[in-house]
């Protein structure tokens, strides 16, 4: 094995800091594959969850409980005819989905899945994320203009006004969290990894810090983040009752699916910001209070328990399949899926026990890494559920209401929270 592959393995920093391009590339590929897979899973889960919210069944035909539906959808989208309207601006129409996709995926460079489980740790991490995410709106704006049609143009105008407005509140909420990182040490940090580490040092997630200041900033950020990703109830840019499909009305096939991919990737990215800033990133619950090796072992069992629970749900689903011969294939398929989940659970269990019973081995490092990624992904998944929940619960805002919420409610609140955080931070410690 070449030296540059092996030399990183014992390292405790990210590949970017260690200057190891090979592992940086491997991490990039893992993250790209993982995010794409998560988007596919999210697609299925959103349709199912929305259906159950509305007392429907959702996709049921393709695979057991519609599990293969996203794959069928992806194939359909890839094979569909790709239409570019004759009056459209060809080049800009072609490049618009790529802008959104690039912006959404570039931010994953700095997302910390663990203290060393990130591509790179930047001194400007959170600024980088906000800046590059804000480039995503260019894709939407340009797509709406290039279509040379009325609905897309109105969608693009709404979207740009909305995103520019909510970015202000979002930025101010982020600043109040960044301010909290400087409380005990005197110097704050903008680095994503540094922010999580300072939460560990201060022994508190920033959502609970200076209660209710941290919590209010967090809620403002969550509202702004839903608006920023153009999701319901703020999906003015693609309001189907008014604008057909908004900025992507003229798009079809693969290009349309690129827009969807970018939207979901951006959702995961902004959720990661919220998790990193306020919910302790990769930290498990009570990392300082419950510090004994026994607790480490107990919390390491959670990943395998999660997969075990999923496997159990799949087994129950397979057993409850109707007895008719039509469902035989589906039953076998769901049982195979359950077996796969069970195998993953078993694998994670073995790693957890092996890693926690010995130290300074590959298994110990692997176990630690899985723990970090597990807690981070768990928190982000809760946010993904929150997105679906909001979409199912609230009706769409009117555009003037949307602007009023952004400028007259969120902006003053975040400003006051920022000032109060600064005052309390000077007085209290």
């Amino acid at each position, binding site marked *: 094995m070449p030296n540059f592959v092996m030399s990183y393995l014992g390292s405790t920093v990210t590949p970017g800091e260690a200057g190891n*391009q090979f592992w940086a590339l491997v991490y990039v590929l893992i993250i790209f594959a993982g995010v794409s897979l998560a988007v596919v899973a999210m697609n299925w889960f959103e349709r199912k969850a929305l259906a159950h919210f509305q007392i429907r069944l959702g996709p049921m035909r393709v695979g057991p409980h519609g599990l293969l539906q996203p794959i069928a959808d992806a194939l359909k989208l890839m094979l569909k005819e790709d239409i570019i309207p004759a009056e459209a601006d060809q080049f800009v129409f072609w490049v618009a989905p790529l802008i959104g996709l690039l912006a959404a995926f570039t931010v994953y460079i700095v997302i910390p899945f663990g203290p060393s489980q990130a591509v790179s740790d930047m*001194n*400007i991490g959170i600024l*980088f994320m906000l800046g590059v995410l804000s480039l995503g709106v260019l894709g939407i704006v340009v797509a709406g*203009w290039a279509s040379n049609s009325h609905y897309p143009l109105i969608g*693009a105008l709404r979207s740009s006004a909305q995103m520019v407005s909510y970015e202000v509140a979002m930025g101010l909420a982020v600043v109040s969290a960044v301010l909290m990182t400087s409380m005990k040490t005197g110097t704050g940090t903008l680095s994503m990894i540094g922010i999580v580490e300072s939460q560990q040092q201060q022994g508190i997630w920033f959502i609970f810090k200076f209660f209710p200041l941290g919590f209010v900033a967090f809620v403002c950020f969550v509202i702004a983040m839903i608006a920023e990703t153009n999701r319901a109830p703020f999906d003015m840019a693609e309001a189907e009752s008014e604008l057909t499909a908004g900025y992507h009305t003229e798009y079809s096939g693969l290009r349309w699916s690129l827009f969807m991919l970018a939207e979901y990737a951006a959702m995961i990215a902004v959720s990661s910001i919220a998790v990193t800033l306020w919910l302790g990133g990769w930290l498990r619950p009570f990392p300082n209070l419950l510090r004994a090796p026994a607790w480490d072992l107990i919390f390491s069992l959670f990943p395998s328990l999660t997969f075990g629970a999923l496997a159990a749900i799949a087994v129950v689903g397979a057993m409850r399949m109707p007895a008719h011969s039509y469902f035989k294939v589906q039953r076998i398929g769901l049982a195979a899926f359950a077996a796969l989940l069970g195998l993953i659970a078993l694998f994670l269990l073995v790693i957890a026990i092996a890693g926690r019973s010995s130290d300074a081995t590959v298994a110990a490092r692997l176990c630690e890494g899985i723990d970090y990624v597990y807690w981070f992904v768990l928190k982000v998944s809760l946010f993904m559920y929150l997105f679906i929940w909001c979409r199912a619960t609230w009706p769409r805002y009117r555009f003037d209401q949307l602007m009023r919420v952004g400028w007259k409610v969120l902006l003053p609140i975040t400003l006051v929270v920022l000032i109060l955080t600064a005052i309390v931070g000077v007085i209290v410690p």
Partner: protein
Amino acid sequence: MNPGLHQALIAVYTTNTGPGMEPVATPFFFYLLSGLAIAGGFLVITRRNPVHCALALIVTLIAVANLYLMLYAPFVAAVQIIVYAGGIMVLFLFVIMLVSIERASRDRRFNRFWPVGLATACGLLALFVSAFVKGRALFPDRMIAIPEGSNTQQVASMLYGEAGRMGQYTFAFEIASLLLLVAILGAVIMTKKKI
């Protein structure tokens, strides 16, 4: 590829990060980004369609932001992307999209202001040439070694000063923000007839 440039960049790199770590293809990225910036700037003034111009300008701004990154000024690079590429250009596009493209592209541009533009360009060229000729005397011999990891903190202590000491540029910074506030108020008063 220019070997002198490569050596200089490696020297800068090692003063900032410590010895033993060679940068990858640094001259390649330098020429790539500079080329992108120049090509973008050229397209901005040659394209007839204003949206294409705005897109070319975004390419230039992002290329310049990456050049800042190569100069170990990540904070400036991030601010460049947030303020210019993300904020101002979106507003530009917002306005441009409402303009009738057919009429705008038929208009002859610079028809009245070309002497002013020519004079400005000549002045800028003269400035660059003089900076290039006198560069050795004007700029310090070597870069001040500020570790990349604390760039933001260095900018902050320049602006606001260390604990208990006023910063070098606090007054100028505050005056600049006041100026921006006045500009915002002016825009509001000009657009709204009744307040």
